[in-house]
C-alpha cells in the first residue's frame, strides 16, 4: 500500500510536510463520506485512493454507502442526465420516492461525525438530518453541469443550500448560491499504473503489440468511444495534417460493450479509419492502465478534442508525461492548459490540424509546452494537492475570515 511519504519523491518534502501540519490541526475531528456506490465510477475511485492516505496523515475519516433499489437508481440516473441538460421527464412522485429512500438511509448510514461529506446528488437529501444532529455538512459535486434543467436544479438547490458549503470541480459548474462554494479540481496519482514512470522496453513492446512504429511521429487521443469526445473529428484533423506531414494516429479507449451508443461510435470510427493503415483504433479492455500509460509516453502529441468534457483528466495524464497537448477549450481543460503556455487550446477540426502540423514540424517549440505542462500538473493536479484542498476545506468550516492563522 502506498504511504503519504512515498509522494515526497515526486512533489518534494515541503508539500508533504505541509499536509502533516494541516492534518495535525484536524485532530479530534471525525469525518464521514457518503456516496452511492462502493465500486466503479469516478467517486469510488477517488475515495479508494484518498481515504487510506488521509488516514496515514492521522485524520479520522471513513466512507459509507447508501442503499437503494432499481427504481431509486433509475431516478438518480434521470437526475444525473437532467443536470447534463437532457430532457428526462421526471415526475413529482419520482422525486418523492427519491427523498423517501434518502430518509430510509439516514438511520442506517449516518454515523456520529463532526463533518459529513455527501458526494453527488444520490444521497443529497441526507442533509435533512442536519436540523437534528447539527455538525458540519458539505455537498461535493463531481458532475459537470454547465446546462442543468431548471426544475431539477431548483429541486436540488433547495437541498444544496442547507449545506455549509458546496464543492465543484471546475468554475463553470458553479452557480449563484447562498452558501460558500469551493473549487477542488480532481487529480491524478503519479504513482499509479496509469501515470508511473515506465521503462522504455515496456513502451516499445506495447507499441509493437499494436504494430505502432515508434520511429515515426505518433499523435494520440485516449478516451472512451463517445460522440462527445469527437473521435471522428480527430480523424478528420489527422487527414488534413497527413497531406503535409507524415504521422500515425492512435485512438485508444475503453467503453462498455453493452453500451449500444458506444459501439455505434466505435463502428463509425472504424469506418472512417479503414482505408488508412496509419490509424490505429484500439478498443482496450478494462484494466489497461499500463497500456494507456505506454501509449501516452510513446506519443509526440496528445489530443483531447472533446466537444464537452467534465474535467478531462486524460489531459493531466498526458501533461504529466511531458507531452505537448492540443485540446478543446471545454469543461475543466482550460484549468489544465493555458493557451500557448502549457499547451494549445483549439475550437475546430481545422484549428486542431493547424496546431498538430506546427508542433510536429517544430518539436523544440512543442517540447516547451510539454515541460511547462508537466510543471503545472506537478504544482496543481497531483493527488497531494487534492488531499491538501480537502484538509483546508475541513478546516475552513470552522472559520469565517478570508485570512486564517492556524
Amino acid at each position: 500500500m502506498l504511504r503519504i511519504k512515498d509522494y515526497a519523491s515526486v512533489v518534494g518534502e515541503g508539500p508533504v510536510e505541509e499536509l502533516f501540519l494541516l492534518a495535525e490541526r484536524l485532530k479530534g475531528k471525525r469525518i464521514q463520506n457518503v456516496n452511492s456506490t462502493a465500486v466503479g465510477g469516478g467517486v469510488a475511485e477517488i475515495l479508494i485512493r484518498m481515504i487510506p492516505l488521509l488516514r496515514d496523515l492521522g485524520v479520522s475519516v471513513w466512507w459509507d454507502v447508501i442503499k437503494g433499489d432499481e427504481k431509486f437508481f433509475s431516478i438518480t440516473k434521470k437526475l444525473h442526465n437532467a443536470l447534463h441538460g437532457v430532457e428526462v421527464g421526471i415526475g413529482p412522485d419520482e422525486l418523492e420516492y427519491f427523498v423517501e429512500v434518502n430518509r430510509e438511509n439516514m438511520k442506517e448510514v449516518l454515523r456520529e461525525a463532526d463533518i459529513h461529506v455527501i458526494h453527488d446528488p444520490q444521497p443529497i437529501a441526507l442533509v435533512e438530518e442536519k436540523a437534528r444532529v447539527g455538525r458540519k455538512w458539505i455537498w461535493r459535486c463531481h458532475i459537470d453541469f454547465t446546462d442543468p434543467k431548471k426544475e431539477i436544479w431548483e429541486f436540488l438547490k433547495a437541498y444544496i443550500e442547507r449545506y455549509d458549503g458546496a464543492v465543484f470541480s471546475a468554475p463553470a459548474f458553479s452557480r449563484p448560491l447562498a452558501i460558500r462554494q469551493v473549487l477542488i479540481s480532481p487529480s491524478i496519482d503519479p504513482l499509479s499504473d496509469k501515470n508511473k514512470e515506465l521503462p522504455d522496453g515496456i513502451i516499445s513492446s506495447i507499441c509493437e503489440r499494436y504494430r505502432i512504429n515508434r520511429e515515426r511521429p505518433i499523435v494520440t487521443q485516449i478516451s472512451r468511444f463517445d460522440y462527445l469526445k469527437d473521435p471522428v473529428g480527430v480523424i478528420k484533423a489527422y487527414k488534413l495534417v497527413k497531406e503535409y506531414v507524415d504521422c500515425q494516429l492512435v485512438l485508444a479507449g475503453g467503453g462498455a460493450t453493452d453500451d449500444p451508443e458506444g459501439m455505434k461510435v466505435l463502428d463509425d470510427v472504424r469506418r472512417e479509419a479503414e482505408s488508412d493503415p496509419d490509424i490505429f483504433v484500439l478498443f482496450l479492455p478494462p484494466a489497461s492502465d499500463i497500456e494507456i500509460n505506454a501509449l501516452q509516453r510513446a506519443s509526440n502529441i496528445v489530443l483531447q478534442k472533446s466537444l464537452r468534457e467534465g474535467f478531462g483528466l486524460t489531459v493531466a495524464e498526458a501533461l504529466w508525461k511531458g507531452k505537448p497537448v492540443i485540446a478543446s477549450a471545454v469543461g475543466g481543460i482550460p484549468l489544465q492548459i493555458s493557451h500557448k503556455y502549457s499547451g494549445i487550446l483549439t475550437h475546430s477540426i481545422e484549428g486542431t490540424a493547424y496546431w498538430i502540423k506546427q508542433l510536429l514540424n517544430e518539436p523544440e517549440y512543442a517540447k516547451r509546452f510539454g515541460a511547462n505542462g508537466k510543471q503545472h500538473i506537478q504544482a496543481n493536479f497531483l493527488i497531494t494537492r487534492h488531499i491538501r484542498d480537502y484538509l483546508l476545506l475541513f478546516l475552513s468550516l470552522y472559520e469565517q475570515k478570508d485570512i486564517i492563522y492556524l
Partner: protein
Amino acid sequence: MENSFRFYTRLNLVELLGRQAKNVAQLLNGLKQVPDSSIYYHTHRFLQQHHYLSPEPPNDFAFWVTNCLSLDSLGEQLASVDTVQFRTIRGLREKFLEILESYCREQNSRNTDCQEGEEFHFMSCRTFILPTPYEARNLKEFCEILKKVSINSIYFHIFEARLRLERGENDFSNWLEDIGQKKLARDISRLDPYTMTLEGLRKKLLQRVSHNVKD
C-alpha cells in the same frame, strides 16, 4: 526568540463566487463588486500556479481580455498594471477599474461577448497561514533555511505579507532592517518579484543574502 525570524507558510483554498462575465462591461461590474480576496486571487493566480514560467503570464483579467475577447490593446493595458507599486488591494482594484471604465466610455457601450464556454469566472481564495518549524537567528541560518523552505513560504513573506496583509514591506526586508542589515533590506525591497519566477526569486534572494554572510 528576540530578533529571530520565524518562517511561515500559506496555503490557499479557492472559492467560487458563482458570478461570471461575458464581455468587458460585465467584467467591470464584477470587478466593482467582488471582495478584495478575489482581486488578489486574479492578480496572483498565475504567479502561484505557474511559478516556473518565464516570462510569466499576466493577471487573469489581461489574459482573458486578450485570449477570449481578442482585445489585444486593452489586454496589454491590463497586463502592464505594475502590481508591485500598490500597497493595498483597494488601490490595485481602482487601477483596473480606471482602465476598464475608460475603455467602456470610448467604446460607447459596444460590447463583444466571448464564445460560449469561455466566460470569465470570478473566484477568490481563503488563505491559511501557519508556522513552519524553521526559525533563523542570524543571516547564516536565514540563508540555509531559504534554500530548503517551501516555495509557498517565500511566496507568503514576499507577496502576501506586503500587499494582502498590508504590512507595507516584505517580511524579509522588515526583519533585515531590524537586525541592522539596512542595505540588504533595501536591496531585497527593490526587487520586482512580479517579473521573475518564484524559483528565480529564491535564487536572487540567496545570492544577495549569502553575499552578506561572507562579509
